């Protein structure tokens, strides 16, 4: 589904990703962990198409297509979803109107008819219940005046509405208390399917108790330096990242 080969990316002359390789197959959940500044969020940004990053080498294909050639909105319509680490507040734009426009853009791209007002509202009710999002929040301006937890739940709500094939969760757990974390994880788990893949970027092992990954990768200095199963996350939680850094230094 997603194939990243020797990816190099930089911002303002600083090379952040330095030859990253990653292979994600349909239905798999990959966790990407790593110390601060290792390039985790850069990877999410590059996959979503943030233009501040320059790709200097490597390729990324998504369902056989060259992802790096696509504008951010085309990636979204093709089925990539990024749950933002810091969801943006957009005053005056109603969450619902914006989502309706987004859902219909995505549907048009996939050759599906636009949803009727009734179908759309049904979908909103169903999906907002999934993340226990108060119906009133759906009618407010996008993320404006939302608490940190509400913003993250709103991200997962949007994901559920857009039904992507690949979801990238960029530190969705940061700033969440246990209850909110559980709700967000339940939303994600409800969406797991043999056709849908997830890349879960996190700093903490805790999230992986709730969203159990098939693979865990450690990103360090812009490269994946170690891969394993969920036990690797537990080991990192216990021992920290120093041993990874040492291994990387001697390799």
């Amino acid at each position, binding site marked *: 589904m997603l194939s990243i080969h020797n990816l190099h990316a930089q911002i303002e002359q600083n090379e952040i990703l330095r030859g990253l390789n990653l292979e994600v197959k349909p239905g798999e959940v990959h966790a990407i962990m790593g110390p601060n500044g290792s390039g985790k969020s850069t990877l999410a940004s590059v996959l*979503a*198409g*943030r*233009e501040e990053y320059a790709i200097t080498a490597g390729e990324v294909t998504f369902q056989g297509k060259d992802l790096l050639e696509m*504008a*951010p*909105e085309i*990636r*979204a*319509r093709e089925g990539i979803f*990024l749950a*933002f680490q810091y*969801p*943006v507040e*957009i*005053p*005056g*734009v109603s969450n619902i109107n*914006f*989502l309706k*426009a*987004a*859902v219909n*853009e*995505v549907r048009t*791209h996939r050759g599906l008819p636009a949803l009727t007002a009734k179908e759309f509202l049904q979908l909103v009710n169903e999906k907002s219940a999934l993340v226990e999002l108060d119906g009133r929040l759906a009618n407010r*301006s*996008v993320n404006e005046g939302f608490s940190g937890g509400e913003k993250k739940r709103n991200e997962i709500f*949007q994901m559920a509405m*857009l039904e992507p094939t690949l979801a990238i969760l960029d530190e969705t757990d940061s700033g969440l208390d246990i209850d909110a974390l559980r709700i967000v994880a339940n939303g994600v788990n409800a969406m797991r399917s043999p056709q849908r893949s997830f890349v879960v970027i996190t700093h903490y092992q805790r999230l992986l108790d709730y969203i159990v990954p098939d693979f865990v990768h450690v990103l360090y200095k812009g490269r994946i330096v170690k891969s394993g199963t969920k036990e690797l996350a537990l080991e990192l939680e216990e021992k920290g990242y120093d041993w990874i850094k040492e291994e990387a230094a001697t390799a």
Partner: protein
Amino acid sequence: METTTASKKDQLLGQLRTRPSALSETFPELALAAREALTELDFPTTRQENWKYSRTTKLSSEEWTIQPSEANISLNEWRIPGLDAIELVWVNGFFRADLSSTEIPAGLSIGKPAPHTIRHKEEVTMDFFSALHEVHCTDALAIRAEKSKKIEKPVHVLFIQHGALPLSQPHLFLETAELAELEVIVSFVSVDGEKALCNAVIEGNAGKSSKLTCTLIEREGEQNALICRSLYSIERDAVFHIHTHTISGNWVRNDLHIRLNGTGINAFLNGIYLPRESQHIDNHTLVDHRHPHCESNELYKGVLNDRGRAVFNGKVYVQIDAQKTNAYQNNANIMLSDDASVYTKPELEIYADDVKCSHGSTTGQLDEQAIFYLRARGLGEDNARRLLTTAFILEVLDRLESEPVKEYVVELLKKEDLLLD
């Protein structure tokens, strides 16, 4: 140095000399004062503080003439859908009874201004254009809601500019007597016109505990210039709303002066301007708090594109007796192009010591983070930008109480490709 060619001003005045004024018989003293002032005044230059960013060369270089017109003009395009209004149609500054509504509801009177009408004397000689208007006013009409009458139907005044180089100088008097209610919409439009200068004055007086609403919809032609002076006196406990929408026109100047002459007044000033291509739009507002316990709330927003230019100058005076005043002013601008420019200046002068006053002025680009967020959800870049612009503008339009008028303005903006469908 002596010059043999007459100045632009002398050319214009010479050409207008034989034209009588629709105001001079009723208000002879003001006509005299204006005539005297005209000997000194000339087309404003950017050396004058009030005109610092608005050049008038485009206005002084044309040979305008006063042109009464008999043209039969279809009004369909200019009506507001869903709004059952009393229509008062003017062409080139002259009232056209033949094109206007004939049924006037009880409690509303429409006719020539009476000599005791409240005038804004200071503004008559404020500058060249105001004196020119007084001395050569093309036509004047007074619209008055009688005491305790709520006029259910709004009045829609259509100022139409027609033909080549007309100078229109129409004058409206709006009045709500004590406890009366009146809504007036004024449209400025151009029909089969090439260039026009409309130099209009609207004077209003909202009586005690009355409610007066005036909505300006400025849709002048691409080559037209418009000067619109709105001068209001508001009495005790009255509620006053004014909405100014500048949608098209090459060069537009709006002056809005509001005097709060009593206690307990609520005044709301809202405006939008959207200069693009080479349009120039200037809004000068003045709210004068003279008595305690009044509130004024002002929100003007601009979206600037291409080489569009805008000026916003918002004066608020809080006089020494105007304790417990609440005065809020906000001006926000979005620049969609590197070549657009805006000159914005709030001016608050506060002489009372127990008041709440605030002002804010912001100018910037659309939020790129928000655009990326919307694109990451599948919205195309153009739509993402338009969605943000729409939200920005709707904050002002949402303050329109009349649903048909709001929808009409939204439709006009969509047609200009400024708002999202």
